[in-house]
């Protein structure tokens, strides 16, 4: 961390000045493409695809393949998320094709359109925790873990308020990407169910069930719980108010780094200065920012959520809470 930031009287700085400090830190982390974040979706999709022939020819028992498939589904979202934020490459950049390929393929694993996930996720960032505008609001609104799981279950139903939020958002936005996203989603949905039906017709319904359908549903529970509800529950609206850090018995890895999800919210400045950086580097960015903010937020140390965190916590953004 630079001396200028270390010595900054951050408590008395305006939001604009703080933003400038954040950008100054972020610039130091503007490095090249993250190879691990490219290998992650490559291996994840490759392993999942390889499960099918291995199980069908009997080389791999279904009871072994099913947990691997579940892991694949749980790991599929974050690369898609990074692509949604143009983290691999922005429009017009040389590796833009890579960004889009990772986004489309990872999302397809989850039987979702990348374009729809992107549009709804960006809308979530614009309106986090605002009823009627945040497409993920239903996922955040549970008051208990059980209620959240129930909300997830309702989001999987054919026609419930919880299951219609993304479609409502897409129709409200109504831009070209949304129209293409609806087309993509129709193709993906028909393909997804078509594959399930063909497998079932050939006496392999259980294989399809345990390699795709069930892992996908369980992954949705996981994703909505840890990537949506846990970082946003009981929070307000606004850049420094809509996301919280949390501690999980499973730690940072089990929660897909969502214990530090506040990083992705705080990194508006980071995205401006280092937009090609994926989530992984976001945390490296947050570490020095944490030091900067800690001084400004001593009064929040008594907060029950305010235990020190390995990456960053809402403590450091608490000055404006």
């Amino acid at each position, binding site marked *: 961390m630079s001396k200028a930031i270390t010595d900054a009287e951050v408590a008395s700085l305006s939001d604009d000045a703080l933003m400038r400090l954040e950008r100054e830190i972020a610039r130091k982390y503007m490095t090249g493409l993250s190879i691990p974040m490219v290998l992650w979706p490559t291996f994840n999709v490759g392993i999942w695809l390889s499960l099918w022939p291995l199980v069908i020819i009997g080389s791999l028992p279904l009871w072994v393949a099913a947990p691997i498939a579940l892991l694949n589904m749980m790991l599929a979202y974050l690369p898609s998320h990074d692509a949604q934020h143009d983290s691999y490459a922005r429009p017009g950049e040389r590796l833009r094709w890579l960004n889009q390929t990772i986004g489309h393929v990872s999302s397809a694993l989850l039987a979702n359109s990348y374009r729809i996930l992107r549009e709804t996720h960006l809308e979530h960032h614009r309106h986090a925790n605002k009823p009627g505008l945040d497409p993920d609001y239903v996922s955040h609104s549970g008051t208990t873990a059980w209620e959240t799981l129930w909300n997830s*279950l*309702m989001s*999987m*139903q*054919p*026609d*419930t308020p919880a299951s219609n939020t993304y479609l409502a958002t897409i129709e409200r936005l109504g831009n070209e990407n949304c129209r293409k996203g609806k087309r993509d989603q*129709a193709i993906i*949905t*028909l393909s997804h*169910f078509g594959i*399930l*039906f063909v497998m*079932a*017709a050939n*006496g392999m*319904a*259980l294989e*399809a*069930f345990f390699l795709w*359908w069930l892992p996908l549903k369980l992954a949705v529970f996981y994703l909505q719980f840890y990537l949506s509800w846990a970082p946003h529950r009981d929070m307000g609206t606004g850049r420094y108010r809509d996301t919280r850090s949390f501690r999980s018995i499973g730690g940072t890895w089990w929660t897909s780094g969502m214990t530090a999800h506040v990083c992705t919210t705080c990194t508006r400045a980071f995205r401006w200065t280092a937009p090609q950086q994926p989530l992984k580097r976001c945390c490296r960015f947050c570490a020095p920012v944490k030091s900067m903010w800690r001084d400004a937020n001593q009064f929040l140390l008594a907060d029950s959520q305010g235990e020190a965190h390995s990456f960053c916590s809402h403590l450091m953004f608490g000055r404006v809470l």
Partner: protein
Amino acid sequence: MELIFKYLPVLFGGLFLGPVTAEILTRSSLIDHLGRPSGQADAEQIALGLSLTQLCMIAGALWGLVAVFRGRWI
């Protein structure tokens, strides 16, 4: 196309959930509780002149139809 998506739960119930249920019954010991030796029940007509898979597919499709009108599977 809209019709297909509207009635997708019926297709899903009949063409996937039904066969999944039938396979669970036939590929596990659960089939023994239906009074049929394991592995043979599917080929036999177990009720109404229908095989286990056919019965499960009909049940799945009916459940899917209920889901279409209720908007929920459960």
